[in-house]
């Protein structure tokens, strides 16, 4: 520093401020500005190019009258409930099993977690192959003699979203297991000793003592799963491309297709604003509970 003889508050902060310019730009221009821009333009009838020609809530009326959007929402709800319930249950059970002072814990954990390192595209393509009706699981079971065996989720529009959920669970449960395991390890060993002394069976200890104690971990995990659910996009693109027909469409794909293929920007903006709204419904109460009491985050 050139004026080192005067270590003024102003100079010290100048450097930090200059260094924080990318952060400030990202926060204000992209996150705040970009979001406000999209919400604003969702009230216009922009087609190929964004135009400020306001039409009120027209795009939203149209959105909720579009069968493809309604299917997307229904799929997201089914996918969301399956993801939440099964990844929490399976993740917790696996963590509880790994927490039994077993041998090869690291090996098991490595195996359960490796799918998480893979992209949704890779995950989707592998499961597309495994669930292939002619060569995959169904084909193999049929070739073993059980010819009426029927397991073809990816080409059956009424259950295709379950086929996608199978792949999603395979990919994501390892992460939940890791978070749960960290939570279990954070619990004082004395609790276990006390429960054992009192003769409480293990499953009861888990259900009535450990899980209530892990409330913060569960809440964090819940937020992580929930914010992942809304974003689901690449998995569907890779596994089914939204098919058969429009049976496995999801909101994120609706947004992308309307913005970049259908050249109906207004619809895309309205749909993405709905996505934002659904995230806010989950995040705001959580942020309020988590940070509301404290002065500084």
């Amino acid at each position, binding site marked *: 520093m050139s004026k080192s003889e005067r270590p003024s508050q102003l100079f*010290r*902060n100048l*450097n*930090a*401020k200059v*260094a*924080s310019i*990318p*952060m400030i730009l990202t*926060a*204000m221009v992209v*996150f705040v500005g*970009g*979001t406000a*821009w*999209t919400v604003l333009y969702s009230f216009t009838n922009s087609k190929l190019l*964004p135009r400020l020609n306001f039409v009120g809530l027209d795009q939203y009326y149209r959105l909720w009258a579009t069968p493809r959007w309604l299917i997307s929402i229904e799929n997201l709800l089914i996918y969301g409930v399956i993801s939440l319930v099964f990844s929490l249950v399976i993740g917790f059970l*696996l963590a509880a099993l790994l927490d039994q002072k*077993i041998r090869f814990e690291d090996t098991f954990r490595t195996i*359960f977690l*490796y*799918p998480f*390192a*893979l*992209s949704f*595209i*890779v995950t989707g*393509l*592998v499961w597309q*192959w*495994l669930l292939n009706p002619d*060569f*995959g699981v169904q084909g*193999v079971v049929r070739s073993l003699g059980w010819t009426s065996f029927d397991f073809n989720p990816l080409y059956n529009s009424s259950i295709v979203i379950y086929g996608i959920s199978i792949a999603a669970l*395979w990919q994501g449960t*390892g992460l939940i297991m*890791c*978070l749960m*395991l*960290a939570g279990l*390890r*954070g619990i004082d*060993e004395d609790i276990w000793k006390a429960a054992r002394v009192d003769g409480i069976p293990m499953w009861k200890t888990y259900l009535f003592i450990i899980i209530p104690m892990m409330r913060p971990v569960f809440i*964090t995990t819940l*937020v992580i799963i929930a*914010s992942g659910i809304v*974003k689901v996009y*690449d998995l569907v*693109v*890779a596994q089914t491309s939204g098919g058969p027909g429009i049976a496995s469409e999801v909101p*994120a794909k609706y947004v*992308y297709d309307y*913005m970049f293929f259908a050249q109906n920007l207004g619809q*895309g903006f309205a749909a*993405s*604003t709905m*996505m*934002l709204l659904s*995230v806010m419904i989950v995040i705001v109460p959580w942020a309020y509970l988590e940070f509301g009491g404290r002065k500084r*985050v």
Partner: protein
Amino acid sequence: MSDHAVALSATSSNWRDDAAGPSGPKPRHMFSRRNIFLYGTLVVVALYYLLPLYVMVVTSLKGMPEIRLGNIFSPPLEITFEPWVKAWSQACTGLNCDGLSRGFWNSVRITVPSVILSIAIASVNGYALANWRFKGADTFFVILIVGAFIPYQVMIYPIVIILREIGLYGSLTGLVIVHSIFGMPILTLLFRNYFTSMPEELFRAARVDGAGFWGIYLRIMLPMSLPIFVVAIILQVTGIWNDFLFGVVYTRPDTYPMTVQLNNIVNSVQGVKEYNVNMAATILTGLVPLIVYFISGKLFVRGIAAGAVKG
């Protein structure tokens, strides 16, 4: 998040066994009913998790005639590496038939600068937030963290406009900037928490010795925080390599990253489906993050526990 990371890093140490001592539970037999159930369940689940990887590898080593006849779980009768060669150098996307290698190099050209840039920006941000807090800094930080939860779809189009205005739409540079922007919340949080946990005396001593903002960052903070940099690198390499959405939005067909090209190869509607080539291509795309995962081990767990918010 960092609490998890700390707890996870202690997972396999045997601190719990120390407490047991002679008063602990009585030793169990190796083949007790409990152990058979425990290990039996774990092994079955582990097999289920490994199955897709196994099927991928096995399929990619078979010839097409064998795939049509046989079952996807059987090991190859005759091992062939032709599908791998074909996936790497001949597989077609649209009119281009130069294989996945193009996507691979694009991904390298995207990932390396993105990782460096995003970590450089975020570490300085975290450092400024931890040690040089200025008025309003925390507000920007909160906006940044809240922004991490906004669905990307909301911000995709405004960024298209910004990039088009500065002439970077469709270029790799544009995509690098996008990755740096969206990597910023979680990385800044990671670095801020790490720098905050460092003893403040260090910082004060350096100040007394006359070191400035950049001097302290480069000579003290950077060398002392290598582990967190490794965690950040792991997080970013896997995250950016696996990205699909930004790749498909912000690049053109000749600059598509590997994931986008892979999807186009496998899901193209023209021609005969070559499942072995498809699976070889899929493994090739998954190989980089898998290698990172298996080499980094516990650090990866720390990284994802920190980066889980990113989803």
